[in-house]
C-alpha cells in the first residue's frame, strides 16, 4: 500500500514538480470550506485573489517561456523589486481586511526567506502553472457569467 502511495506521489510530483506555497494554502482553504462549510475567503476577496494571480501569471509565463528576450523569472532570483511590489499588495490586503490573501502572501514570503523549497526564486513560492491556469479559467467563467447575466432576455434566449 505504501509502495502504491509512494509511486502515485512520485508520478504526481513528476508532473507538477513542487507546488507554490500559495497553491498549497489555496487548496487548504478550499478543503476547509468544503469539509466544514466555513468560508475563509469571501467572494469579494476571491475575485481579488483571482485577479492578483491571473495578472501575475500573465506577466510571468508568456515572457519566461520565450516570447521576448525579457525574462521576468529572473527578477525572482534578486527579488528586492518583486518583494516591494508584493509587499505593497500585502499592505493593501491588510488595510482592506483580506486576511486569507494576506496570510498567503506572508506564508509564501516567509517560506522564501527561509528557502524552504528547492528553488530560491521568489516566483516559485508565489505561483505555479496550476494556480495560474485555475485563476484564468475562473476569471473567464466569471466574465462570461457577468456578460451573460447582463444581457437582455432576448439576447439570452438567442445565445441559448
Amino acid at each position, binding site marked *: 500500500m505504501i509502495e502504491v502511495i509512494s*509511486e502515485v506521489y*512520485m*508520478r504526481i*510530483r*513528476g*508532473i*507538477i*514538480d*513542487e507546488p507554490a506555497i500559495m497553491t498549497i494554502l489555496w487548496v487548504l482553504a478550499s478543503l476547509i470550506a468544503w469539509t466544514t462549510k466555513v468560508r475563509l475567503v*469571501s467572494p*469579494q*476577496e476571491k475575485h481579488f485573489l483571482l485577479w492578483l494571480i491571473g495578472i501575475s501569471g500573465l506577466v*510571468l*509565463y508568456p515572457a*519566461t*517561456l*520565450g*516570447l*521576448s*528576450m525579457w*525574462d521576468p*523569472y*529572473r527578477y*525572482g*532570483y*534578486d*527579488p*528586492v523589486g518583486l*518583494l*516591494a511590489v*508584493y*509587499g505593497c499588495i*500585502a*499592505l493593501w*490586503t*491588510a*488595510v*482592506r*481586511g*483580506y*486576511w486569507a490573501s*494576506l496570510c498567503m*502572501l*506572508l506564508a509564501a*514570503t*516567509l517560506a*522564501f*526567506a527561509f528557502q524552504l*523549497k*528547492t*528553488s*530560491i*526564486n*521568489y*516566483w*516559485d513560492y508565489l*505561483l*505555479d*502553472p496550476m494556480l495560474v491556469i485555475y485563476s484564468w479559467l475562473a476569471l473567464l467563467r466569471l466574465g462570461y457569467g457577468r456578460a451573460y447575466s447582463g444581457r437582455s432576455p432576448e439576447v439570452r434566449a438567442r445565445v441559448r
Partner: protein
Amino acid sequence: MTHKPRYLSLIGVVVVAAVFGYAINNSLPTASAPPAFLIQSFEKSAGVGSYQQRFINHKADNFIHSPSVAELNGGDLLAVWFEGSREGAADVQIMQSRFVAAENRWTEPTVLINRESTARGVGRYIRKLGNPVAARDANGKVFVFFVSVSVGGWAGSAINWIASTDDAKTWSAPKRLITTPFFNISTLVRNPPVLHENGVIGLPVYHEFLGKFPEYLLISDAGRVIDKIRMNRGTESLQPSIAPIDSDTAMAVLRYAGDGLPRALGQITSNRGAQWPKPQALAIANPNSSLASVATGLVEWPLLVVANDTEDDRYRLRMYVTDASMSQWKMIYAPDASPNEDGKLYNIEADPDYIKNLMSTVSASAMDDAALVVKNRVCRDGKSCELQYEYPTLIRVSNGHYHLVYAWNDMLIKHVVFDQAWLEKQIAQP
C-alpha cells in the same frame, strides 16, 4: 468594503513590514552581476606535437550518445555518456569511465546513474534519461549534470546533478535544478560549464518547449540556480558551447535548429555573460548538430571549434580555429570523415574490412567483435555504410593538452588528445 477592526489592520501592516523587510534583507547578498570568468592557467610546455586517439568503450552493442569529459586529479579524466537500446528508451543509463593517466588507459565503463537512482534522489518519477555533462569546479568538486524526463518528450526535460568531493570516486544522491517556473520543464544541458570567480558555475543550457533558445545559468557551489540569463529567443538556436577568452569576454558557438540556411551560430559576451548579443550566422555549415569549443590562448586564433561542417548530415567532424570576431575561419584537421565527401552512403564492396581497418587505426587492442557489430548496424546490406561522428565535447586541461570526445557511429566513444604544439603546427599549415 469589508469592515474589520482597525487594530487588526494595524497588526497586519506591522507583520507585512516585518516579514517583507526580513525577506528583502535576506535577499540582498545575492544581488550582483556575474562574477569574472576564471581563466585557467596551463603548464608552460607546449608539448611535443602529439595527437593520439583511442576508444573509451569497446563493446558496440548499445546506442551511445552525448559523451562529456572532465579533468580529475593527477591527469586522470572522467568520461560520461548515455547508453541504452535507443535514444529515449527507458533502459538508458548514464555511464562513466575513468582515464587512469598512470596506466594510460580507460577503465571498463560502469553505470553512474539510472532512472531508479535518479527517481529516488529527486523524489519524482523518471521516464527517461538524456545528455550528461561532467565538470570540475575551482575547488576540485566534480559535477555531473544530466537531463531527465518525467512526462512527454525532450520538451519535458529537467536538469539534475550529482557531485563528488573525492575526485569522482563516490557521488552524492541526484538533486534537481529548478530552472523554469512552468512545471520546471524544458531545460536541457549539453556542453560543459565555465567557471566564474567566487565558486559560481556558469552552465550553458537550452530551452526546447514552445521555442528553441539558449540560456545561461549561474549556479552556486551548493548546486542552486542563483541567476538565469537569456542568450537568445526564437526557435532556431540550441546547445551553446561557451569558451571564456579573458575575465570579461567569452565566445559561444551554437547549434542551428531553424529552417533557413544551415549555418552554425555565434555570439560574444563582453560583460561576463550578463548580456549576449543576438547570435550571428557563422561561416561554417551546421546540419542541426552539436558543436564544441575551447579557448586556445592564441591571440590570432583564440577559439578552437569542433563541428559537423556539413549541411545535411553528420558524416564529417572537423576542427576549425577562428579569430576574436568569429569572422575568419580556418579548417585545421578532420578527426573523422566519411570517405564520401558528399555524405552519401559509403560503399565498402571493394573494401569489406573498411570498418575493421578503420577501428584498428584507433584502438591498440583488437576489436574484431565490435567491428562486426558496427558494420552490421552501420552498413546496409553489409556494403552501403552511413557513418556518423557527432556530439563532440572539447576541454583543455592543466597540462595544456586538449581532450576531445565524441560519439563514433553512436556505438563507441572516441577520445582524441593533442597538445598545443600539434595545434599550432596544424594552424601554421597553409
